[in-house]
């Protein structure tokens, strides 16, 4: 008889909890002998705390969060590893209708082009400075989030100093749309469905998207208590296989209607199906009936989307250093590098015969088009994976990259 592994996972009610939710609801966890319990949480702090006290063995986490935990930047953190990502892309930058109108007057178009939108925003920001108006206030969900780093990267690359020219505050995802509508904030970077929701409700406009700022970049990951992982390698392998199968199911367009129905349930995201389908289909609303097509807005499986690249971990680390959250030392860089565990991923998924990258890290921005790369198992196509401003991140030249970002 197959052994049953009891695993409890915490998650936040966001569209990119899809892979975890599907693993349970579509029976992928059960097929691997896992009795998976999912617990809906209200804050990333809760997820961190409950992983620390052992209520959760694994959790849906912001990609940089486990690195911050291991660097000792957050309270009550325990050593956490990332043996798998939970998809690429999936978030966006939304601005208020007022800000969008001003950006449009400076040439921004509804095509999510980061450069065009950013340079228009730069002019809006400069105008406000000249008129001695209060700086624009943007919100992200957490200081150690992809949202925070992408937003800052985008702004800085467009000549806006995110520490001086605007203000960045923390707002929980479900409160973003109301905060935007009430004028408490002027824009935000958040995961779905909260960009689509603002656009469909007519309360904001999607200015640009993660999938354009840094193509093929990770958003959420599976955070795993390091001690539990060490003591339960079989259970972890089984879970990774279940999640990989779930990710494949999520990536199949034929399943998107079913997936949105499941996610819409109160137990999970608990928001209307119509708010989630646009992002899954890659047809994002820009007001009225109009949409913009983005084929790689959210990629749960293709392009090795669940592979925990060490170059991703190191880029997040480089941004923590850039924005003064941590001091750059060889030791800290090593902690960040060791947080992501492609070795565990490969060992667990080998039996599935899916495409597994041979390398542990890649030069982010090296692939300007979809390119076949070295893999074991099935053949693998990666990219494009570039930053919108043409920047390259070579994880072997971390020191130089960090130095080049000093202001």
């Amino acid at each position, binding site marked *: 008889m197959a052994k049953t592994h009891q695993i409890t996972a915490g998650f936040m009610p966001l569209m990119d909890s899809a892979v975890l939710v599907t693993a349970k609801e579509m029976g992928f966890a059960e097929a691997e002998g896992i009795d998976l319990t999912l617990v809906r949480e209200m*804050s990333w702090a809760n997820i961190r705390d409950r992983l620390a006290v*052992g209520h959760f063995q694994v959790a849906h986490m912001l990609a940089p969060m486990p690195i911050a935990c291991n660097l000792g930047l957050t*309270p009550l953190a325990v050593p956490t590893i990332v043996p798998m990502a939970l998809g690429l892309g999936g978030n966006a930058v939304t601005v208020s209708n007022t800000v969008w109108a001003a950006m449009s007057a400076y040439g921004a178009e509804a095509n999510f082009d980061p450069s065009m939108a950013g340079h228009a925003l730069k002019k809006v920001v400069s105008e406000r400075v000249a008129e001695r108006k209060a700086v624009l206030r943007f919100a992200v969900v*957490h*200081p150690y989030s992809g949202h925070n780093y992408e937003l800052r990267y985008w702004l800085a690359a467009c000549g806006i100093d995110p520490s001086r020219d605007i203000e960045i505050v923390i707002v*929980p995802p479900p409160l973003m749309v109301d905060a935007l509508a009430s004028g408490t904030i002027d824009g935000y970077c958040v995961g779905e469905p909260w960009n689509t929701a603002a656009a469909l409700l007519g309360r904001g406009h999607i200015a640009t998207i993660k999938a354009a700022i840094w193509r093929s970049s990770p958003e959420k990951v599976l955070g795993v208590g390091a001690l539990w992982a060490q003591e339960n390698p079989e259970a972890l392998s089984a879970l990774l296989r279940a999640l990989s199968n779930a990710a494949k199911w999520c990536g199949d367009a034929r399943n998107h209607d079913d997936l949105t129905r499941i996610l819409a349930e109160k137990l999970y995201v608990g928001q209307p199906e119509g708010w989630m389908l646009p992002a899954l289909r890659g047809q994002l609303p820009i007001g009225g009936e109009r949409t913009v097509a983005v084929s790689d807005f959210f990629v749960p499986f293709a392009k090795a989307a669940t592979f925990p690249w060490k170059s991703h971990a190191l880029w997040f680390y480089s941004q923590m250093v850039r924005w003064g959250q941590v001091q750059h030392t060889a030791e800290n860089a090593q902690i960040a590098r060791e947080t992501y565990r492609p070795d565990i991923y490969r060992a667990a998924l080998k039996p599935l015969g899916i495409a597994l990258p041979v390398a542990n890290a890649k030069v982010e921005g090296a692939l300007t088009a979809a390119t076949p790369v070295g893999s074991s198992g099935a053949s693998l196509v990666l990219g494009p994976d570039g930053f919108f401003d043409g920047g390259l991140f070579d994880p072997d030249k971390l020191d130089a990259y960090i130095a080049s970002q000093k202001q």
Partner: protein
Amino acid sequence: MPAVQKPLSILVIDENHLRASVIEAGLREAGYDDLTIVHDVVGIARRIEDVQPDVIMINLENPNRDMLENMFQLSRAVKRPIAMFVDRSDSASIEAAVEAGVSAYVVDGLKRERVKPVLDMAISRFNAFSRMSRELDEARSELEKRKLVERAKGILMSTRGLSEQQAYVLLRKTAMSQNRKISEIAESLITAAGLLAPPDEEK
């Protein structure tokens, strides 16, 4: 002469008014009078600046914990560094807090012995409140069960021409012979009656 310790200033953030008052009462009974209770985080930075609390408590259901923690780390509004109440040597107490659903943040340098009783009090009050809510839920479901039995009796009375007492005895006997609860038998009967009802009565 030992320096007189200033009483701890405690800020409780809880959107649940009832629970907030349960906690407030507990802390007051324990002699903590310098209390501030807020139900909404709007303007919380200003409030913290005014009150200068030594201890801040927030329930885990509040989605604003991430915002608060970020504020504690960065904000100019918070003059003294605030950290989560963490004492590695006392993991049981941390676990008890998380289980009860409360987290506490304390200003830097505050002695553990001074904070622990406050946290313990909050934990016990949180647990008491959960117990109370659970009992209330149970009372509610008890009422629901009674309503089910009433409806089942009504169905038996109208379809089989029984008196109320006879209908109840029949339900009770059936429950006993099947080793099930009377409310379960009532529920099955209501479901069955709904399925067997002629189509025009379905609405």
